[in-house]
């Protein structure tokens, strides 16, 4: 059986989540491996969410936020950019493939981009294979 990765999406309410909605209403096809959690802003994402997601069995984590400059709260995603960049470096130095974690800026009108990104990321994680390093033993 082909490996079906589990991917956690954390999407900002104002852009990426709406973009995902748009992708849905315009009937764009994208892999069903993504499970989305909505947050009010990408800067609400505690980096521990990402560590925890990998521990609880995520094979990839995709964070979506507004394009820099377009944040609903003006500067939230600019803080998030720095913060999540560090998270990525930490994952890398800890020995996890950093490409399992991706941050993308997707606006409310970019339903296409959303579908594209999810498709491409899912394929990428599929190639990487199951994530076992952080996963807690016994978690299915």
């Amino acid at each position, binding site marked *: 059986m082909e490996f079906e990765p589990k991917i956690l999406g954390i999407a900002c309410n104002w852009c990426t989540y709406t973009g995902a909605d748009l992708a849905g209403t315009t009937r764009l096809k994208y892999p069903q491996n993504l499970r989305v959690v909505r947050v009010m802003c990408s800067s609400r994402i505690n*980096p*521990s969410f990402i*560590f*925890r997601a990998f*521990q609880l069995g995520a094979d990839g984590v995709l964070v979506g936020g507004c394009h*820099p*400059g377009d944040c609903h709260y003006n*500067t939230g995603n*600019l*803080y998030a*950019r*720095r*913060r*999540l*960049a*560090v*998270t*990525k*470096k*930490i994952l*890398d*130095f*800890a*020995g*996890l*493939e950093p490409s399992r974690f*991706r*941050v993308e*800026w997707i606006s409310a009108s970019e339903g296409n981009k959303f579908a594209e990104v999810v498709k491409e990321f899912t394929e990428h994680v599929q190639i990487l294979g199951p994530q076992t*390093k*952080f996963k*807690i*033993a016994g978690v299915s």
Partner: protein
Amino acid sequence: MTNFKQIEENLKKEAKKLLEAGSVAVVLAYTKGADEKHPQPFAAKKADDVANIIFNEYCNHNLARYIVRYAPGTKIAVAVKAADSRAVVVLIQEEKIKRENLILLGIPVSGMKNQKTGEIIDEKTTGGLTNPVVYDVLLGEEIHTGKPVSPYTVLEQYEKMDKDARFAFWKAQFDKCIRCYACRKACPMCYCDPCFIDQTKPRWADKSPQSHGNLMYHLTRFQHLAGRCIDCGECTRACPVDIPLYLFHKKVAKDCEEMFKQAAGMKIEDKLVMVDFRVEDSDKILE
């Protein structure tokens, strides 16, 4: 090499002056523990206490750790080595303490030794610096060894490792952890109450010392210290099971320096990189 006797003399003299004049409530320095080779951080509160102050090559403890223990507004004099002074700078930036309430007694050091092994550990504990970055009084001559050492050269061998090997290395290291939390308690930057790991709602990680809880604890701590760690190496020195935490902290510090063009705790006017942003930050940092 630092003239330790000279510094001890000067430290005593300054501490005495400050305490007698009543310009500070406490002088944070060192005293002897079980013996001279095992010094202990010391809070001198009376002029009489000054006689107990010592300074030698084993006085590695970061005294900035103790500043947050005193009520806001307390006038404190602190003996600061390079790393301690950087920690003080971060504490000032984070508004845990006001510059005007501090008198910094700077100590230029080189030739500090590990108490257990006797090995010289300058590069591990001072981030490549010999002189404090900020001080009111300097208790010796500034030391200029010529070529500045990069604090990050030790990282090379770990950066070269392939990912699986690196993961195996860290897993083995974190598995040793007994969760005594000496690392966070020794860290001058770890002052949260409660610490995220002690929270029950949400519970970020298990309290029991197992692989996954340990990994979560340490990785989150690395993230929380990003752009704040001043590379004093106290976490590693405090660790009873010798986990080389300083390597990871150094790596994060190095990445922060590369990405945001600023090292932690160098200038009081700087803003901490994690509570700051530039519109022109590149998305490349996320790749």
